[in-house]
């Protein structure tokens, strides 16, 4: 079972397909779960704290906006442990709470720097593309080995 980083990191479709074909999807929920189940001084009224923007400095420079650094504190540890990645290019909903143009670029850059197997896709526009989408994901995940 490989750890597969998915982007958009909150994607239902990618998370479901990765788990369905026998691998572990690495999405934001895992980082958030770790934060809210860990007791701390903040015992946070918010799941993100000012410290997260500092933690993000490991992956983004200090002049990068704090929003990007905050998001990187969630995505960075997932990218670090990823053994493969599936990225959907330019999804509409990766712009907003989940991400922004700079975060998207930085995540893609960091994933490509890791030299791991990557599958890049676009969301299907019709049923035929849906079939192709699922087959590509299946073939990619099968090529990673394990019990998929």
């Amino acid at each position: 079972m490989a750890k597969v980083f998915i982007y958009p990191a909150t994607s239902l479709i990618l998370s479901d397909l990765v788990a369905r074909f026998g691998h572990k999807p690495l999405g934001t929920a895992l980082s958030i779960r770790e934060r809210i189940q860990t007791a701390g001084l903040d015992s946070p009224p918010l799941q993100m704290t000012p410290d997260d923007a500092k933690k993000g400095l490991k992956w983004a420079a200090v002049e990068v906006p704090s929003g990007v650094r905050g998001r990187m504190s969630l995505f960075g540890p997932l990218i670090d442990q990823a053994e493969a990645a599936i990225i959907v290019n330019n999804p509409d909903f990766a712009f907003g709470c989940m991400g922004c143009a700079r975060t998207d670029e930085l995540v893609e850059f960091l994933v490509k720097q890791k030299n791991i197997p990557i599958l890049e896709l676009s969301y299907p526009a019709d049923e035929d593309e849906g079939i192709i989408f699922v087959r590509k994901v299946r073939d990619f995940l099968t090529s990673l080995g394990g019990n998929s």
Partner: protein
Amino acid sequence: MNWVIPPLYAGTITKYVFVESYKATPDDIAARAYEVSGEVMIKETCFGLQITGKEEEVERVIAHIREFDPAHIYVKDRGFPPGDPRRCRANLGGARPGYFGHEYEMGFIRRIAVGLERLEESVPVAGDERKKVPEGLPVKRLMELIEQEA
């Protein structure tokens, strides 16, 4: 918000179950989940379920639900447990943050369902090699629409 919230349901996981099926409603899969619920906590929602519990228990319940309609039931992790005051719309008002992402993907998830249903077919898909059609409304289609309206 100045509350202090202790860690909730530490050591558990929460998963969303989405259903987009003509054979099953959230009510049907909730009934099916309760058949084998064991120690998990199940919350029924408008789109499916949220299941909270120990990982192996949650996976067991999900495997049981999935058998009902494998290509139309989807699962993903959730960071927060159900009813968490930081996310629950009962406390915040309006749609829960994250809802819009689900709404976006549920809009075309039936295409994924078709892909899953036809996964084992060995016939190549017509679109495998097709050229990308430029976006926009073709003139022919526009003429058809004008004629329909006339």
